[in-house]
């Protein structure tokens, strides 16, 4: 009983850790952002599952006196979903800018290019344009 009551948390932790793994192990920046979305959705699932009451129904007032699930987490997560898309859009536009500046979105390649630039700095290689604007 006690273990079954905690299953929702464990499911959420599993999904969250998969998202976290994508985020830290993959070199591709677009995939990192997808991983961030997976991570984010797992947090939504945590909140929504905390608002659920056994035998409850959606919090829309009706005739009779049913048990309603807690509406507060729903409201918080509605806000979080929209903010999540805003951050995704910003992240992806950063990826596009990085692609414009470096010609790649692979972390390893970007690192190599940075090292190459650091090695030949006195040849005035035109790379620092992005840093200057940022």
């Amino acid at each position: 009983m006690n273990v079954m009551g905690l299953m929702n948390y464990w499911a959420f932790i599993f999904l969250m850790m998969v998202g976290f793994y994508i985020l830290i192990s993959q070199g591709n920046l677009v995939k990192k952002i997808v991983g961030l979305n997976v991570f984010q959705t797992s947090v939504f699932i945590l909140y929504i599952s905390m608002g659920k009451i056994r035998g409850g129904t959606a919090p829309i007032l009706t005739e009779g006196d049913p048990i309603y699930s807690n509406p507060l987490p729903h409201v918080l997560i509605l806000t979080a979903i929209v903010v999540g898309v805003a951050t995704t859009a910003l992240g992806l536009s950063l990826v596009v800018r990085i692609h414009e500046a470096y010609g790649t979105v692979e972390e390893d390649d970007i690192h190599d290019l940075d090292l190459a630039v650091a090695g030949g700095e006195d040849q005035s290689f035109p790379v620092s344009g992005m840093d200057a604007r940022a």
Partner: protein
Amino acid sequence: MLAITALALVRLRNLFAVAMLAGIYSLLSAGLFTTLDAVDVAFTEAAVGAGISTILVLGTLALVGHEQKKARRSSVIPLVVVVLTGSILVYGTLDMPPYGDPANPAHHHVAPHYLEESEHEIGIPNVVTSVLASYRGYDTLGETTVIFTAMVGVLLLMGGLRKRENSGETDAETRESEDASGSGPVPTHGGSGTDPPKADGKKTHGEGDAHGG
């Protein structure tokens, strides 16, 4: 189902497939929200998470290419970090209240007030709507501010891109002098794989998506 989709996301290297699977993941989680009585959240997730996010990712992929290279570093350290973090989190859940219990602390603060009084105070049958727009209206205002800020950021990042591409100037030249008539091919840093005409064609597509977000 969610777990399988998420694991498939780790393995796949074709980023178009990743984008579609991420959409499926969002849709599945929307279904889960419905069964957890959060209908408003479910259709927001289906529209925004599965719809707009997927379009945004696809728009980006059109600009940056869709094949992921194999990572050079080993995946052992991330795995250890993830397992460690996960076990600590599991340890943390042992004190959490059980799922679905009406006696949980989350259900005993302001939520009963919203459920009992919102019909008289606000007059909208959907409690989520009345909390969102009235009791927690400032949250929604803050959310709008965040979206506005993000949109300004996206427009600054992408708008500058279009301007530079149109004038045919490289990064370095734009920085040195804005009105220099830099025509002709100039050595771009890391030029391999950059394809300005193609990127310009897809540009408007990606930006339109950003407005939707």
